[in-house]
């Protein structure tokens, strides 16, 4: 087997074994620090998706949860793998479900005077019924127990990518040196089986270039020692980036040592490499107006539906370490999550300033 054949096996199920890359880059998002400012999404948009055909693409998107997300209702669309390894059938999300880049009647309002109000139109020329962040800040629950949290999403650069397995042309591959999943746009013929198979629905179709496109983990920046744009620009310093096997780095510590960072919908079976520190919440308020510390405002069952059964343990560890820190005792976990020194403590291997290149 030559090097090209070997590289094409990475990320595939070969005789029941997933062929792994040498190392795996990963991200951890601390949801307790996300302020929903969308700086990450804009950093990505300005860096990568400004060309024609990419108007509606948000390789990184920050949704409000509980909510329908982007594309609308993606969690119920299928895709990924069954426990026995078979791929689950799914469908291709439409432009309206992703939230199209709308056209506005600026000319009529601002120059011609033939209309008085700006009105958006979708790609069909109709009034939009959904957008990339249509249910922002809506959340769930009734006052005083209403709740929501912000939720950044991007390609999970999975260890067993359903997109890679689904492509009939071998156009999707996983880099040997860091596990970044990329679509080769020279090989892609725009068949969109990847969009079907991806259970996270983080792949878009470019109707101008006629190829599928998605987050590239800013690999040209990674190759120069620069952090991905979304992570470097994050004002909340909540997007940790690093190698999963680096025992001294924050990713390994949060995922494997402290076990507080959890994958999203692990049951989809693709082994995602983006992890989330789940959100703590204040206690629910009873009918008589008293806080009930036994019940978090964000229902545990909801968080379990996203992050699985380990979320309760994760929240418990976070609470305990937070309490330690509040008592003036040392807590390595809290120190990691606080990120005292930027950028060294948030993406230690990728600290180079892109302006110096």
């Amino acid at each position, binding site marked *: 087997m030559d090097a090209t054949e070997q590289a094409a096996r990475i990320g595939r199920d070969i005789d029941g074994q997933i062929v792994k890359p040498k190392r795996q880059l990963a991200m951890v998002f601390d949801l307790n620090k996300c302020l929903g400012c969308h700086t990450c999404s804009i950093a990505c948009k300005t860096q990568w998706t400004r060309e024609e055909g990419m108007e509606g693409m948000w390789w990184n998107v920050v949704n409000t949860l509980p909510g329908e997300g982007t594309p609308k209702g993606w969690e119920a669309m299928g895709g990924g793998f069954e426990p026995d390894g*078979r*791929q689950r*059938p799914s*469908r*291709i*999300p*439409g*432009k*309206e479900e*992703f939230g199209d880049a709308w056209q506005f009647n600026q000319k009529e309002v601002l120059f011609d005077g033939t209309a008085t109000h700006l009105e958006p139109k979708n*790609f*069909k020329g109709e009034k939009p019924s959904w957008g990339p962040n249509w249910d922002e800040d809506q959340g769930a629950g009734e006052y005083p127990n209403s709740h929501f949290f912000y939720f950044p999403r991007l390609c999970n650069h999975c260890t067993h990518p*359903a997109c890679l*397995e*689904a*492509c*009939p*042309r*071998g156009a999707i591959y996983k880099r040997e040196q860091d596990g970044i999943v990329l679509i080769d746009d020279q090989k892609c*013929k725009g*068949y*969109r*089986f990847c*969009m*079907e*198979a991806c259970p996270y629905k983080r792949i*878009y*179709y470019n*109707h101008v270039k006629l190829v599928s496109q998605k987050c590239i983990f800013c690999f040209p920046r990674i190759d120069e020692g620069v952090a991905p744009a979304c992570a470097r620009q994050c004002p909340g310093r909540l997007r940790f980036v690093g190698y999963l096997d680096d025992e001294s780095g924050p990713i390994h510590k949060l995922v494997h040592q402290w076990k507080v960072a959890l994958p999203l919908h692990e049951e989809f079976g693709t082994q995602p490499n983006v992890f989330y520190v789940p959100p703590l919440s204040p206690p629910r308020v009873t009918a008589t107006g008293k806080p009930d510390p036994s019940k978090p405002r964000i229902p545990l069952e909801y968080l379990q539906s996203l992050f699985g059964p380990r979320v309760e343990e994760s929240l418990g560890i976070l609470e305990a370490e937070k309490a330690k820190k509040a008592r003036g005792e040392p807590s390595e976990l809290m120190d990691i999550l606080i990120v005292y020194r930027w950028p060294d403590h948030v993406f230690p291997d990728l600290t180079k300033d892109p302006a110096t290149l």
Partner: protein
Amino acid sequence: MLAKRINFGAEEPGDPAAKIWGRFPARKVALVPAPVGLQPSKYIQGKWRDGQFGATSALGLQAVHDGTELAIRLEWECEQPVATVIDNDQFADAAALLFPLSESASLIMGAGGEPVSIWFWRADRPKVAHNNVAVGIGTSRLTSSPLISTRAEHTHGRWALVFRRALAADATAAAEVAPFDPGKAYRVALAVWRGANAERAGLKAFSPEWVELTLEA
């Protein structure tokens, strides 16, 4: 079947509705769904295992040439034509001709060292077919030449499509382009995709046997 040699001058064979096509009977070519087991990904095999694709059961094949140019006309039933793609889940109707570039090339997309040339037309770019070279399933690669012009019409629930290409092929492109000479016999295989059924890639109806095509001397 025989591609008659005629004078193209007044006949306009590039028009699928031209009178010339009424003068020669069409050869009916039977099509079958591409085997699910040959689909090159487990996802496709799983989702389409019930074989609900490739229902186009036949097409009509006609061909004429004038000594310098070949015109091939296909006609097939398609009740729900798709010629424009504006949403992510839409796929255009398509058709293709496949010619072997070596004696023993497989009509199932060729093989390593046994390439095939594929003239691929899609309804959303109706005026030109792309020439692809393939050396196996999932390997088709677009080539920069030759020019294959096309014209298609959808009427009464049927597509009629004409491909036109110069007989001669650039000698430097011999590995990618099938040359044609009057008086010689060639083989061709055919495929049709129904866009309304999300057919693309290997999800198609194809002719399981070569059709012999002889250019009249």
